């Protein structure tokens, strides 16, 4: 951040710096291609867009909800791994290793197909009616699966961010009488958040893309809707071209927003 401040003193650099974000033109270009295709060839392109549009809302919903939960669970896991309590540290470390060691697709299949059966079996064992008739909600299980996996990666990002704050910051806070938790909340975390913003933004983009995997566990996201359209229309090239372009628009916009937030927080201080 200090380097950026120094660079900004160079005449013309800020202009050049600003130009980085003319990457918005790429977003505009992709949107333009989609609009052009839809206008020039409404059949099939406009038809595809209309068909998958409800799936688009599902994709955005799954991604945003899973991301918010990931931010919370990731932070709790990171704090657990940095805890003084050995048991808490042990449990959170095991969790991270499992969640990172099993492929995301396998995890999603587990939560959707295996987890409900386990709950049902457990319900029969203890004769607990609601458990015996437990049925998986695809949407909820998909969010659970994504969150379970992504929170483990997120916790490592938080942990690196927290550990990147110099030790003297904690000492200064503690010497003023702050408790461990107060020092974490008012001094360490606010500084860690700034450091981890770029990797956290990347996680959001990865999550958006990986959310396409939920299409295999009965969630009617944009990928699943694309498969349905292709099955009915026998137009694989047009269908997957359009789906790919729609994903690209979403990820490109996300990348711009992340860059914007990053710049904003860096110019606020110093």
């Amino acid at each position, binding site marked *: 951040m200090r380097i950026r401040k120094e660079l900004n003193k160079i005449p013309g650099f800020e202009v050049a710096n600003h130009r980085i974000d003319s990457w918005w033109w790429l977003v505009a270009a992709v949107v333009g291609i989609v609009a052009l295709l839809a206008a020039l060839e409404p059949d099939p392109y406009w038809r595809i867009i209309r068909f998958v549009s409800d799936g688009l809302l599902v994709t955005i919903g799954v991604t945003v909800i899973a991301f918010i939960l990931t931010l919370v669970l990731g932070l709790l896991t990171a704090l657990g791994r940095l805890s003084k309590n050995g048991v808490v540290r042990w449990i959170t470390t095991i969790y991270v290793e499992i969640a990172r060691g099993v492929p995301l697709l396998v995890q999603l299949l587990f939560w959707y197909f295996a987890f409900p059966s386990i709950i049902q079996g457990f319900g029969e064992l203890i004769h607990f009616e609601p458990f015996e008739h437990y049925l998986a909600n695809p949407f909820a299980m998909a969010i659970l699966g994504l969150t379970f996996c992504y929170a483990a990666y997120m916790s490592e990002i938080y942990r690196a961010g927290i550990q990147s704050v110099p030790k003297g910051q904690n000492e*200064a806070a503690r010497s*003023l*009488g702050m408790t461990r938790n*107060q020092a974490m909340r008012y*001094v360490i975390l606010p500084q860690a958040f700034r450091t981890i913003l770029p990797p956290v933004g990347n996680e959001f983009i990865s999550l958006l893309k990986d959310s396409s995997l939920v299409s295999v566990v009965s969630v009617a996201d944009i990928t699943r809707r694309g498969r349905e359209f292709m099955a009915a229309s026998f137009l694989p090239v047009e269908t997957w071209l359009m789906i790919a372009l729609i994903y690209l628009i979403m990820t490109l916009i996300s990348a711009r927003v992340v860059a914007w937030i990053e710049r904003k927080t860096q110019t606020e*201080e110093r």
Partner: protein
Amino acid sequence: MTTLAPTPIIQIENLHKHFGETAAVNGVSLNVNPGEVVLIIGPSGSGKSTLLRCINRLEDFQSGSVIVDDIPLTTAENINAIRTEVGMVFQSFNLFPHLTVLENVTIAQKVVRKRSPEEANEIGRALLAKVGIPEKENGYPGQLSGGQQQRVAIARALAMNPKIMLFDEPTSALDPEMIQEVLDVMLQLAKEGMTMVVVSHEMGFARAAADRAVLMDDGLIVEEAVPDVLFSHPTQDRTKEFLSKIL
């Protein structure tokens, strides 16, 4: 003839602190009376900073006892109680870079002392004026010079109304022309009767403000005396050798 000896506000008794195999503090006993200014000098690695950091328990220790203002450093509650009474100033300032200058001085007042924002701001502004930085309250630490940052750090510690101030080489990281502005603030504090323990080699400050100078080496106190006496007529060879290097 009876002179009533004041109860020491800091009582350190046979303190031992080692990092693994290396002993940092190797059996130190030191009492500091209320209002006293004690300067600790010594070569690097002599344990002087470690001793200072044991007073507010930033460092754990293996044996011995530290009692501050009649509170023994034992339980977590006691340690936090002591930390609210003991201000600390660090060599590298350790200001909070994400907070403004005023917020640096008010955050602990609000969070620890539970003061209202208005009250905390009022106290904070008064202290910033006292250390000579009233006009920078909305700036960030990164925009200040080292000397200004250290003065803000002193104000931040004073905002908790400490009974004791610890200074860990407060001027060692400063450019020469900024040292005096920090020492001036410390001199004023000493005049006002603040109890201070200072790890520093600033002889001018020692002569002007310190009641006692302590020389440490190898985790032990080698010699202690009034600064003028210690600097001019040291009795120990180790003291003479050390002084010849720094004077």
